[in-house]
């Protein structure tokens, strides 16, 4: 039986790992390579690494750094940040990365997804959709939440699927770093909007929050930043990840809707 995925999401800023709150106030939490090694030991299901500088600065993906992370990573790795072309996506895959995540570029130029999928296969194309929700309506923002596209999140997900994406990641800007739980209404809405594998990011503050997501949406990916890098009320930096037994227990939550 397919298990739901629990995915640490690591943000790279100025070469270090950071954790943001509502896409602002980046707090330094450590070295990317050390984090990969630690999550290897914890047998994490998958790892997502997002370079939050590249798109905003119009920079290319840092291929050297990506290669170093990929060599170390013993679990599937998804990399995002600054990817603008099929050629760059291929190059990232050749470095030993399983999936390439796109956001602004794919939302502005949906045909880019088709070009990239043709090159590396749909299964390796991930679209990260950053969302703000106001009065029950979820719209898509790009460039680290600084540009409002005005597009509905569900519409963007549908279009990404039609263009050849293999996975959708929904990132709630409102919940980012708040550790107040996933936006379950948004998650349910997005589960209904796409038949692709879906990963929800933004808001997880406890394993119970992950369980609640699995109970609401079944087998989806539960991604989290703060939960896996902080410990305690004072947000002391301590990388952590659920044990095999805890994961098995969380997996049972998906049975609620099977």
């Amino acid at each position, binding site marked *: *039986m397919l298990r739901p*995925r629990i995915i640490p999401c690591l943000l790279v800023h100025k070469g270090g790992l950071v954790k943001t709150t509502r896409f602002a106030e980046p707090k330094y939490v450590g070295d990317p390579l050390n984090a990969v090694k630690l999550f290897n030991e914890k047998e994490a299901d998958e790892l997502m690494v997002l370079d939050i500088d590249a798109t905003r600065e119009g920079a290319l993906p840092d291929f050297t750094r990506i290669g170093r992370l990929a060599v170390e990573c*013993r679990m599937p790795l998804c990399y995002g940040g600054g990817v603008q072309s099929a050629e760059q996506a291929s190059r990232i*895959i050749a470095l030993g990365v*399983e999936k390439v995540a796109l956001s602004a570029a794919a939302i502005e130029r949906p045909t880019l997804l088709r070009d990239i999928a043709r090159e590396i296969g749909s299964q390796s194309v991930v679209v990260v959709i950053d969302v703000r929700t106001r009065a029950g309506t979820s719209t898509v923002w790009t460039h680290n939440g600084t540009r409002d596209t005005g597009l509905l999140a569900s519409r963007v997900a549908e279009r990404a699927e039609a263009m050849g994406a293999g996975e959708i990641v929904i990132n709630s800007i409102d919940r980012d770093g708040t550790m107040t739980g996933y936006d379950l209404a948004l998650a349910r809405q997005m589960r209904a909007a796409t038949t692709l594998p879906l990963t929800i990011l933004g808001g997880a503050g406890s394993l119970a929050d992950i369980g609640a997501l699995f109970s609401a949406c079944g087998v989806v990916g539960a991604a989290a930043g703060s939960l896996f890098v902080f410990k305690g009320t004072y947000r002391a930096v301590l990388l952590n990840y659920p044990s095999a037994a805890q994961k098995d227990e969380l997996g049972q939550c998906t049975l609620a809707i099977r």
Partner: protein
Amino acid sequence: MITIIDYGLGNVRAFLNLYKRLNIPVRTARTAEELEGSERVILPGVGAFDHAMELLDASGMRATLDRLVRAERVPVLGICVGMQMLAERSNEGERAGLAYIPGEVRRFTPPADLPLPLPHMGWNDARPVAGHPLFAQLEQLPRFYFLHSYYFACERADDVAAEADYGRTFACAVSAGNVHGVQFHPEKSHRWGERLLQNFASA
């Protein structure tokens, strides 16, 4: 010595890294000359079936691989689309497969009452055939990372080395003589995958 066929698809680096960590000699082959004399061969693969077959043909290694596998009985392990290439054909494309194991590759068709997302992505349990050497020293239900929308439908039940469930039961590993294939990604499946690749190195 393990040889990884590098024809432009699949995570060649991940295999190299893993075998180096295990202190098992490993190399890549990009040409027929480099493939010549291989003792064990890994055929990785991702993406579309036709594209993979095209690239393998274009690499110039196809004839040598055929001879090594069919005449010299060199052990080969296909990974993901590399496993699907071992079949005679795939519903995903027009091209013929390597036809090392009888069967065809089919797309998952989730039943209407159970709308499963495709691709089948994530960690799933494998049920290996009892005593199969590829799964030696692994627990009864080892787990592996999957990422695919098509599966290998074997013609002979005896060629199935392990099964998994995703809406239906399917062969997640096949094995016939010196030819083996796994649908999942052992190179990204922590200790379970590491053990399987180690087993292949000594099988």
